[in-house]
């Protein structure tokens, strides 16, 4: 009796764990495996734009002076300001990343980091053109 029960347990365990392992392999095959430049290159709803944003911030954090007031912005979709702000805080630890409450009037904002979308503001002028966007500096 004991031996039969143990063999049922073993069969369950081997079959179950093989099933979950094959599901993991299927998931990885589906998402793709191999070298990518960022941690989100194969995740989320729009991995391409996420990857570009992270690479842009990485470049910008090297270019902008330490402790400067910076806003990371998507001028085309201001409803996602908070997301850009939070990602900027994490990826630009050397700078003072600020929330874009009033980009034209807040003197603490010295730089704007913007993706490839068109951006025009009379208070700012392009400062550096990067691979995945542009840094603007307050005039």
């Amino acid at each position, binding site marked *: 009796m004991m031996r039969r029960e143990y063999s049922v347990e073993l069969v369950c365990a081997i079959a*179950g764990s093989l099933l979950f392992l094959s599901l*993991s392999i299927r998931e990885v095959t589906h998402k793709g495996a191999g070298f990518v430049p960022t941690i989100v290159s194969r995740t989320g709803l729009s991995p391409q734009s996420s990857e570009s944003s992270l690479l842009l911030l990485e470049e910008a954090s090297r270019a902008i002076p330490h402790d400067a007031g910076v806003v990371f912005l998507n001028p085309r979709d201001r409803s996602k300001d908070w997301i850009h702000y939070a990602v900027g805080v994490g990826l630009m630890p050397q700078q003072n990343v600020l929330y874009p409450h009033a980009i034209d009037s807040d003197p603490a904002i010295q730089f704007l980091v913007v993706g490839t979308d068109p951006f025009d503001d009379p208070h700012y002028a392009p400062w550096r053109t990067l691979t995945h966007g542009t840094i603007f500096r307050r005039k």
Partner: protein
Amino acid sequence: MTFVLRIVAVALCGLWMRWVSPVVRLPLVARAGVYVVGGLVTLAVEMILCSAIHLRWSVAALLVVPIAAGVASYWPLKKRVEGAIDEGPRPFSSIVLIAIAAISIAVLAIAVASGAATSFDLLLFWGPKGVRFAAARAIDINFLAASDNYLMHSDYPPLVPLLYAWTMLGKPALNWWGVIATAPLFLLLSTGMINGFARYAKVAQADAITAIFASLFAYLFIMNAVGGNGEPALIFFETLALCALTCTRTRADEHAIVASIALAAVVLTKVEGTPFVMLLLGSFALFGDAPFRERLRAVVKASVGPILALGGWIAFCAHNHLLDAYRPSGGALTMRALASAARLVGANASFGLGYLPWLIPLALVVVGRKRAALPYLIAALGYGAFLTVIYAHSSDAGVYVAWSATRVLLTPLLFFVFAALTASSTGAQAQARATK
């Protein structure tokens, strides 16, 4: 490299756990996880205390006390090593099962390394907090209190951001790849703990449970894309707490101090940690398979850590006017909302796999010692009820359930794995009592 060294230092900071009596008798694969949990709790407590007294963190200052305690723990050890487990060679089926577990964790590691197993929660919440804490060399109260950061939830348990801050301390940036690599690392350590504790307690199907746990959670970590988020850490700590209360040889309170430290980590990791502690200890006390006095002793000892940790954190937040999620709040709860939330949670609980993640551990319960599994099944049901009430309170249950249910359901699933583990045990504790 710094990241790896800092993670190794975490384990060294937990070496003092050797003082806790039965830890040195556990197999190395279990001890490794115990030391990492001990180290994380030690560092987190030090970092919170330093922040409370306005003392800036430094790597050296944080390391001094735990490393000294760890070194000192090697002296009076000779007597205690007696009784270490002595096992014969493993059967072929065990080797197959352990290989499946190892390959599953390797697949998770590949998913993480391919940028396919994390989500924006890391970039929006866990990571930024860690970065700001490291930059401020303290829990940055001004940052948490700022109205711009209200979505960072000022009083959210801080252990995971504190770990990230620890790895970045004195460095210009956070190692994001290292951070997401903690998911396979925590799963590897959790798997080692389950296997080591189960072998210590002479659980007949230790390797079978190990394989089910590792393959199931590797898949769910990939599916939920939780690399670098709080879930892998939470599951890691919950696993140790469950191991410590479940896998005993002599008395139910044998590992209660280890459970206490693991439960302290649980409540400091995510808000869902608190109901886990209450349900685990409550169901263990009421329905556990051991004499009532032993269970009571175990529960009393195990509850000290989480009470002190959560109490201390809430006091810190209250003192600094950071209370948010832990502030008491009310709200109308209707039967209709409850029924709707229960339906949504129930549908998501299938994980798109026809409820197989639940059914496979349950099959082991059915053929095993059902009575021993009871506390864990009841705790899982209780956790499901807790989730239902929380979702029923939310403004748009459908959105919240779709966003988070398959992640928060990992905890009741862990209860099911431990139900299978206890059901397949030989009752070594009961046998030990019988021979007294």
